[in-house]
């Protein structure tokens, strides 16, 4: 590797023991200043190059730490690890915020898996949901003028020039309608939607060396599923539809809030909905909430998960930025860009997946045949069946547990990550494409519950067991 010496030096941990918080803030300020000057790269080659550069930097920083370990005392070891992790997180943050397109989703997903990556990186990645640098107001104004036909100052009673949240492909501004209704206006970066295809052409090229592998077809269909979901995500008219369906699903549920859409001020690229006041998960946790409150929110997160499945929907991007922890104890769901809809076939597979947790080997075999393309040979492979069995038991553990299950148990999450990593390492990942987003959301919700430290008895979550043979057919 022809590494630049300056890059290597920049990647090395600092020698001075600065307080971590100071270090982080200073770094972030510098990165934001830098980001403010950077253009959004729309050329696909540029994006590919940027991604390649990132992987080199991460590798360099890891090597540097490994070298230093040989010389560092035990006391400084931990500090250096922390700092290096933080620096890596910031670098990733920097790059992903810069890319802003499909690749940023990767960072957001990783942010929901605190045990897959060091905690500092997870925390930094989590900031992507709220702190990515905004487009300046003059650009926002022109995007809105194009989409809504008038300046924001004419359309809205008030419109905050600074974004209060950033999304992977847009940013969110607070505003007030002429009626006085406080709203959140999500605005997409101009032209960014079309770059997603370019991203996928690049990723396809990167994946080509795998095409001779036995899982190529499965990989390709999963890849196609990601592309399909991301294309949906950039179409706000689809999100409006999902918001409306979800409002219908949770109508009458006092503990769950889904914002109302204001269609007159929404288009494919602009989405105006009720502003939902409340805290993001990190802010909520910073208030040191009592265990009982954590448990109540945990139960609501699980209720949303089950209830949406019953309605043949999946809240498929359960990262913390998509929830609001409201003062009155309600849970706000604020982003419906990534919603999976199950077809009849997929819904049957989902039912099988739920039922497989009850421990019937025949159901497991049927699920593997229909959902993972397992052959007789696979079903008689002890290693494969053992690992699959382990994963199913892990998934069902909170359900089979008697009494409140402690989602904050680090060992539980670690075991989940371990079997998942082993499945990937052994390439037992062939499955129906629907399971990709299903697993992502399953891990995402468990990661959220872990961070929340919630203890929930699943039997207290008021959901009709639609998946059982005697369960009623959902809507």
């Amino acid at each position, binding site marked *: 590797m022809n590494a630049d010496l300056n890059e290597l030096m920049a990647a090395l941990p600092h020698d001075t023991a600065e307080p971590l918080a100071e270090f982080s803030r200073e770094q972030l300020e510098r990165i934001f200043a830098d980001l403010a*000057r950077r253009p959004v790269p*729309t050329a696909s080659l540029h994006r590919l190059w940027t991604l390649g550069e990132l992987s080199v930097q991460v590798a360099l920083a890891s090597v540097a730490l490994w070298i230093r370990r040989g010389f560092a005392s035990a006391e400084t070891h931990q500090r250096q690890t922390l700092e290096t992790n933080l620096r890596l997180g910031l670098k990733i943050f920097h790059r992903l915020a810069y890319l802003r397109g499909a690749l940023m989703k990767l960072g957001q997903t990783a942010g929901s898996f605190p045990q897959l990556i060091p905690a500092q990186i997870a925390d930094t990645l989590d900031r992507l949901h709220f702190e990515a640098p905004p487009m300046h107001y*003059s*650009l926002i104004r*022109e*995007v809105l003028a*194009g*989409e809504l036909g008038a300046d924001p100052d004419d359309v809205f009673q008030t419109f905050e020039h600074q974004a209060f949240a950033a999304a992977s492909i847009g940013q969110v501004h607070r505003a007030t309608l002429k009626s006085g209704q406080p709203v959140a206006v999500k605005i997409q970066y*101009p032209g960014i939607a079309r770059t997603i295809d370019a991203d996928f052409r690049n990723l396809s090229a990167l994946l080509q060396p795998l095409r001779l592998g036995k899982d190529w077809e499965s990989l390709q269909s999963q890849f196609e599923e990601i592309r399909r979901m991301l294309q949906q995500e950039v179409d706000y008219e689809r999100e409006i539809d999902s918001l409306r369906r979800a409002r219908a699903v949770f109508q009458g549920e006092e503990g769950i809030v889904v914002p109302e859409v204001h269609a007159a001020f929404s288009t494919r690229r602009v989405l105006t909905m009720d502003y939902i006041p409340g805290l993001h998960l990190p802010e909520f946790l910073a208030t040191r909430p009592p265990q009982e409150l954590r448990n109540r929110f945990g139960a609501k997160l699980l209720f949303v998960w089950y209830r949406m499945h019953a309605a043949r929907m999946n809240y498929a991007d359960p990262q913390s930025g998509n929830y609001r922890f409201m003062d009155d104890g309600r849970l706000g769901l604020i982003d419906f860009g990534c919603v999976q809809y199950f077809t009849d076939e997929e819904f049957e597979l989902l039912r099988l997946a739920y039922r497989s947790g009850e421990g019937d080997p025949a159901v497991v075999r049927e699920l593997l045949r229909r959902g993972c393309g397992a052959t007789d040979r696979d079903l008689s492979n002890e290693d494969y069946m053992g690992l699959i069995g382990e994963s199913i038991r892990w998934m069902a553990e909170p359900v089979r547990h008697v009494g409140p299950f402690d989602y904050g148990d680090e060992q539980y999450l670690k075991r989940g990550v371990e079997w998942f990593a082993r499945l990937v390492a052994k390439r037992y990942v062939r499955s129906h494409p629907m399971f990709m987003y299903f697993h992502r959301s399953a891990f995402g919700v468990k990661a959220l519950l872990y961070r929340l430290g919630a203890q929930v008895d699943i039997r207290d979550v008021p959901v009709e067991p639609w998946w059982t043979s005697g369960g009623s057919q959902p809507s």
Partner: protein
Amino acid sequence: MRITAEAKIANRQRILSVAAHLFQEQGWDSATTRDIATAASIANGTLFNYFPSKESIAAALIEDAVACSWEDFSRRRTGRESLAEDLFSYVWSGFKGLRQYRKFLAPAVEAIFSPLAQPSRAEAGASIRIRHLETVERILLDHGISRPLPAFVLQLYWTLHLGVLAYWAADESPHQEDTLALLDRSLNLFAGTFANDNIGVTHHERRSE
């Protein structure tokens, strides 16, 4: 026969209005000064009393169209904008003024502003270029960039500006969103050349110092 100043102004306006119509309908290349004179009901020679060339007619249309861009930009400015944002706002105000001429703008801009244009043609656009760059220097000054700038800096800016203008003229994306992104990128690139000194200072901060 002597004609009054009012009549001169009216003639000039009629020529411009007719020319704009013909450029749009017949296309830049097909519309000749003879066509314009005929449509404006004046003699061909009379037209040249007002405009020495087709390019100068187009330049006058552009100049009139962007005349309000400084006022438009100033009206919207809060003083808290970054350099890149100020430039973006100013340039886009100009584009908005030119929107009605988008159909023939690309060939007209090429004829008037191409570095390889004949001197007589380039002359037609000189005042537009000078006025625009003077405004850009004024914005730079507002952001504390007051030292004499090397000639290449403004040349770089002007090249970016013309490139984006040409792109915008042919941009078929919805609401010209691709041009918005391109302009944003280009101006960030340009503002980035001042990154080591004043780029982070807003107009507002500069004034309050």
